[in-house]
């Protein structure tokens, strides 16, 4: 019923003993997500929420508790180090929520990822949820319900918007992934769409993009070539002025490249249904897809 996270997911929380991290880790645990360890250097030997062991290193969390997935709430100056440590410890999936990691640090992380088997989601993302089973990150669990629509998005609240529209119509999601708004991220639109395409329990896909870079254009070409599941898309930033970073570090039109128009044109040319407004994302999908 899902991609990347499910019943086998054993989470280690890096930096979840801080205010923000602990709030969301608790919510994830209430949702039913299996947190097996926490890592806060210097707090090794203590316990999180009275029962989850805290370690000084990610390696210990892997060796002693069998953690296979990490969620990172570490502050920006130290977050890349946290990701590199998780990669070194052999974590399969790292979900990095942290916003504001320097690009230079992420260039080094990206290089390390290419030499490892670790997948990174984010940074600067809301996380990933397989409804009813596993919620890692800051997404509000109640907006999603189990179903067969895969959702991938660069934006947090815009993801909630799309997920909520699907849920309100009585349908659900296989998995929802926020890939984050930074110029360098671990998992791209294409990566997520490939996984949804290969997942027998995902019937249709919603892709939400925004200005900056060419990830949506590349995804459009991939979808045209490889995907026969219905895909609906929305692109934010039609009215964004060139040369300005629109909140997300990666959301910038520079040198005439990365415009919303170019993305919408590429998506339409690939036969993807593009929603005109953020209010009609689910409606656009159900215009081309009848759930089984």
């Amino acid at each position, binding site marked *: 019923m899902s991609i990347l996270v499910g019943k086998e997911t054993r989470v280690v929380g890096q930096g979840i003993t801080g205010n923000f991290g602990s*709030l*969301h880790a608790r*919510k994830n645990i209430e949702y039913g997500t299996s947190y097996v360890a926490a890592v806060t250097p210097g707090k090794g030997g203590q316990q999180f929420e009275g029962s989850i062991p805290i370690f000084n290193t990610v390696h210990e969390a892997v060796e002693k508790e069998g953690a296979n997935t990490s969620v990172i709430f570490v502050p*920006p*100056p130290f977050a890349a180090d946290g990701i590199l440590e998780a990669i070194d410890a052999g974590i399969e999936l790292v979900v990095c929520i942290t916003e*504001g*990691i*320097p*690009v*230079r*640090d*992420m*260039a*080094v992380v*990206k*290089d*390390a990822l290419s030499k490892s088997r670790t997948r990174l989601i984010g940074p600067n993302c809301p996380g990933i949820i397989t409804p009813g089973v596993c919620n890692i990150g*800051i997404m*509000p669990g*109640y*907006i999603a319900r189990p179903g067969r629509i895969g959702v991938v*998005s*660069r*934006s*947090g*609240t*815009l*993801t*909630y*918007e799309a997920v*909520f529209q699907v849920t309100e119509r009585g349908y659900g999601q296989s998995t929802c992934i926020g890939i984050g*708004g930074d*110029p*360098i991220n671990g998992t791209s639109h294409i990566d997520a769409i490939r996984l949804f395409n290969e997942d027998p329990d995902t019937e249709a896909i919603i892709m*939400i993009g*925004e*200005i*900056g*870079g*060419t990830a949506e254009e590349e995804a459009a070409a991939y979808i045209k070539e490889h995907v026969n599941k219905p895909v609906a898309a929305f692109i*934010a*930033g*039609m*009215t*964004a*002025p060139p040369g*300005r970073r*629109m*909140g*997300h570090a*990666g*959301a910038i039109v520079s*040198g*005439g490249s990365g415009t*919303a128009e170019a993305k919408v044109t590429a998506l339409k040319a690939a036969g993807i249904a593009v929603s*005109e*407004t*953020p*209010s*009609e994302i689910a409606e656009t999908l159900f215009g081309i897809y009848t759930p089984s």
Partner: protein
Amino acid sequence: MNIHEFQAKELFADFGIAIPKGVAAKSADEFESALKQLPEGPVVVKAQIHAGGRGKGTFTNGFKGGVHVCKDKASALEAARSMLGNTLVTHQTGPEGKVVKTLFFNETCDIKKEYYLAITLDRGSSRPVIIASTEGGVDIETVAAEAPEKITKVFIDPAQGLQAYHKRKVAFGLGFSEKAQLKQMDTLLTGLYRLYWEKDASLVEINPLITTPEDRIIALDAKVGFDENALFRHSDILDLRDLDEEDPKEVEAGRHGLNYIALDGNIACLVNGAGLAMATMDIIKHFGGNPANFLDVGGGASEEAVTEAFRIILSDPKVEGILVNIFGGIMSCKVIASGVIAAARNVDLKVPLVVRLEGNEVEEGKALLEESKLPLTPASSLSDAARKVVAEVAPSKQ
């Protein structure tokens, strides 16, 4: 974060990059002593503002050009006096222009040929890329569109760093082959890459890079931007920030942890989340309105954040209506509604306010909005909200 050309050139000098001799001055009193530090003969006077297109710009007092090549120091002094304190309008400043507060005096260089050289992030490969072109002094985007074969791109593996072969590839790509030239290019690229990497630059650009008749390679211009997320580890760079070059509303928003960008429309929006904020601007436009700003109040949308956001929005005299669009994910819509109500009271709101709440405990949140007796219009969906705010603002424009 951007810096001025004279600051960028100081950094260039620190990193061993050859530049023309130059001195910056911020007041008329300093002009003569600044000029004394340059050799006799012609002088280039350059207005220091962050926008490009200075040479072709015009001052609001009618004086033409923000870059002047003067035959001697006396005429340089005269040109500098005409520019200081006046407003320069270029194709990048917008019609309001930028006040020139610093002049940069440079010795002139004889030019044999102009080139383009830059280092930035290539998003596709997530690696630094050196971009070099034999077409200097023109926009690199124009060259990329019209003569891409004249551009050499060299990608750097961040783990390996800049290697000698990278530097040779760039130098040969620009047509340099003599030993003395290759040596200068090696020094130049070493310094430029170190500056890019060590100072967390987002862009280092030399346009034009020139050769002189004596075959010296010199950075005639300098443009450097920095990754704002990395400024915490570069207090020296943060000191170079010139707040006069930024929109005061944007600076104020930044102080309160809000992300605000001024636009030229009349419908302000206040949204949580960057993607949803952009989408809200788009939907206002879709229904025939014009967004006045981008504003992301962050995930929580607390009363303090919303109050400050209202203050900043309302300091823009063009604003004739406000659309609040909040998706209450983790936080209850009740809390958000209370915050919006308190904030609206704090700022004594006089323009139409349309509020769209969605998410956690939305019905309770909407009820609070209605009980508030504030002149606000609740909306049931984002489309509904956009239609309503456009309709409320439209009549006042006629």
